[in-house]
């Protein structure tokens, strides 16, 4: 029987009943077929449907058509398992582990099935790993090991040497060479997804702002877009413009901070100091706008809480022009020194093939010449009218990821200057209506790390019964493991900085 097909777009909502339900086998075959034709697994998640069933949804992104195909299948809890996609489709590996941990169903044939975040499951079923979910610390679980006479193991974390988030890194080494790196996270797990279902709207936006502290605007925007979509609320062009300016300021501060961190790691201190100061300039612009250096309290459902008046626009323009000049000069210093280039070039390569197989996103993917960017592919908000050209780099090494940050920073400054020149009119915030019952909605935002995806499902009483969020770090951590494979262990800090992934965003 030919099932009807459902295609959805970014920012859309649709009735629950319209979602096609496939048999387990055809669900699997359709995903594999779509992905072999270039689609990307944007999301794969489960939802306890009641009546003893778990629904599994997959969203397959056809990046160049700007739409996603939505499929689902039903698994009786009694059966408690499904055939794993991972052996044929590596990008499903973490999604399937997440489903196994959250809903205690087993992806049969998964090559490396272990918990992702070490917590109890969401449906009061017996855990798949009862011994680990009840303990305080993740890590009591076997790591991938390499045996051999001269092979040694290096364990790092969860408490690291620097001021960073906790995670455990297990290196299998032969001399200096890394044979494998396994990254075990979960220490930062706060249970945000589950909390989103149980708290008021006033609190859930605060939670969204705290998914990853360096991506406040990205996640808050994704959250607001989602709720606005579910309540058919069309925000004003002015609010869209202010959100987009904030999103680009966030990108600028983080990208430039990362360039500073890379200079520190290779021991080239003048640009490290200058980049560090310049990063602060962009955070301070966000503070001028929203009263907080990370843009908290700016995005709210229905629009934004703060306006940009004429005086501020002039001030912003002036400061951005200075910053643009500084950025160019510091980047010229950094990117032309042969000692810098020799340290960055050829280090930590993630080939285009591997990037695609693992489903990497954001600047990391673009540094491996994958031309994907939500701002272009699934344009949202102001990006529907003002396009930012995508940059990609071929070399796929630390240099490429550093260069991406330079190129994107330049483009972001140009973009903000362009918008400031012709900022549209409109209400700052409009009142939103109640959420639609029995609907599902999708919201995607290109945060500075890449594709942020939020999905919500409402029940017959318009309550949110499932909130699924995905930070780009979730896709990209495996990329870091691959980047250091075969490299020297002393290259790890540099590779890590070139990814700069969020632990909190992964652990939720």
């Amino acid at each position, binding site marked *: 029987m030919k099932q009807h097909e459902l295609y959805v777009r970014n920012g859309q909502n649709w009735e629950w009943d319209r979602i096609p339900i496939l048999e387990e086998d055809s669900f699997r075959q359709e995903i594999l077929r779509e992905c072999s034709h270039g689609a990307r697994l944007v999301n794969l998640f489960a939802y306890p449907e009641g009546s003893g069933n778990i629904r599994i949804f997959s969203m397959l992104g056809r990046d160049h058509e700007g739409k996603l195909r939505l499929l689902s299948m039903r698994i009786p809890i009694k059966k408690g398992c499904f055939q794993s996609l991972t052996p044929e489709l590596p990008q499903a590996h973490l999604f399937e582990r997440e489903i196994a941990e959250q809903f205690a169903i087993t992806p049969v044939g998964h090559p490396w099935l272990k918990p992702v*975040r*070490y*917590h*109890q499951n969401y449906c009061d079923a017996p855990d798949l790993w009862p011994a680990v979910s009840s303990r*305080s*610390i*993740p890590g009591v679980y076997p790591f991938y090991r390499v045996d051999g006479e001269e092979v040694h193991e290096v364990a790092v974390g*969860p*408490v690291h*040497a*620097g*001021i*960073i*988030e*906790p995670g455990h890194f297990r290196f299998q080494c032969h001399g200096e060479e890394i044979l494998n790196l396994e990254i075990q996270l979960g*220490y*930062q*797990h*706060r*249970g*945000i997804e589950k909390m989103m279902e149980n*708290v*008021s709207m*006033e*609190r859930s936006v*605060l939670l969204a*702002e*705290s*998914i*990853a*502290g*360096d991506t*406040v605007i990205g996640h808050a925007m994704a959250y607001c877009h989602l709720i606005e979509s579910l309540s058919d609320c069309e925000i004003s062009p002015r609010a869209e413009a202010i959100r987009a300016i904030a999103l680009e300021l966030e990108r600028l501060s983080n990208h430039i901070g990362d360039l500073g961190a890379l200079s520190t790691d290779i021991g080239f201190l*003048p640009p490290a*100091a*200058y980049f*560090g*100061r310049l*990063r*602060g300039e962009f*955070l301070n612009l966000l*503070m*001028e*706008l*929203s*009263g*907080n*250096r*990370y843009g*908290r*309290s700016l995005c*709210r459902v229905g629009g934004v*809480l703060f306006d940009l008046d004429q005086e501020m626009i002039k001030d912003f323009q002036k400061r951005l022009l200075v910053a643009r000049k500084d950025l160019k*000069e*510091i980047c*010229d*210093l950094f990117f032309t*020194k042969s000692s810098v280039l020799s340290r960055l070039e050829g280090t930590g390569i993630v080939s285009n093939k591997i990037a695609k197989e693992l489903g990497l996103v954001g600047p990391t993917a673009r540094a491996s010449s994958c031309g994907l960017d939500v701002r272009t592919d699934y344009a949202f908000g102001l990006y529907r009218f003002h396009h930012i050209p995508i940059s990609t780099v071929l070399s796929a090494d630390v240099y490429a990821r550093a260069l991406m940050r330079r190129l994107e920073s330049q483009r972001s400054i140009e973009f903000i200057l362009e918008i400031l020149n012709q900022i549209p009119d409109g209400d700052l915030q409009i009142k939103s209506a109640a959420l639609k019952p029995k609907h599902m909605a999708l919201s995607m935002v290109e945060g500075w790390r890449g594709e942020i995806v939020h999905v919500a499902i409402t029940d017959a009483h318009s309550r949110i019964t499932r909130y699924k969020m995905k930070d780009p770090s979730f896709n990209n951590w495996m990329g870091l493991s691959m980047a250091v494979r075969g490299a020297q262990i002393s290259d790890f800090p540099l590779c890590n900085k070139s990814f700069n992934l*969020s632990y*909190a965003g992964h652990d939720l």
Partner: protein
Amino acid sequence: MWGIIINRFKQGFRTTLSYPKEVPSFPQRFRGKPVLNNTADTPCPINKSKDPLGAVASGKKLTLDMGKCLFNEDLKAICPKGILTYSQDHRLAVSKKKDLILQGEEVKLARALNEKTRKIFGRSLKLREVCAGSCSGCDAEIQAMGNIVFDLSRFGIQFVASPRHADGLMITGPVTKNMELALKKTYEAVPHPKIVIAVGACAINGGPFQGGRDVHDGVDGLIPVDLYIPGCPPHPLTILDGLLRLLGKLENKENNFR
């Protein structure tokens, strides 16, 4: 080589703040210390839904718990009469949890450590930072204290790589269940005498995660805390202010550096 020197001139001298001699001005929208206009004859109807974390309590007089406050703009809507506003005052750090509860304008800012401990730490304080479930916002601000604008090390304060080299811990995040053991072990590894600083709303009271299944509501109850620095995240100068007060380098109320 020439490139570096020429660039150095182009960058000019515009680096470290002369804090604490001068406190830079914060933008008008900056949300520092909350101010309650507590006049007895204007009882204000409180819209509890605007305060999902229970920061404001209405007894005889309104009180606000800075430890539960995320310093968010929407909290102002708790009362249409504008009883709650934010000032531009960045000084928020306190020594006792109960001092976080605001009644009017006054905050009992952090006291200095006792003479004996100050003798040990006063000129050189080494801290180990532990992120225990924070979104990394607070950590980013702690890291920012090390950049050339704030230049933390000019006060003799440094972050070290191991708890065994540290005089104390600076903790962020609500303490997730998964970080509890690692935090306790890190605390035990710090030699005596040691201090503990809780930075940010999460570390003080759980922040937006309070009451969550997978987290504790902050550091209290797990290990003893000597300094509370509220904010979401606190501005680098707020953290710096707390540290300098703890070391007795700032006199109360005033910003006089000693």
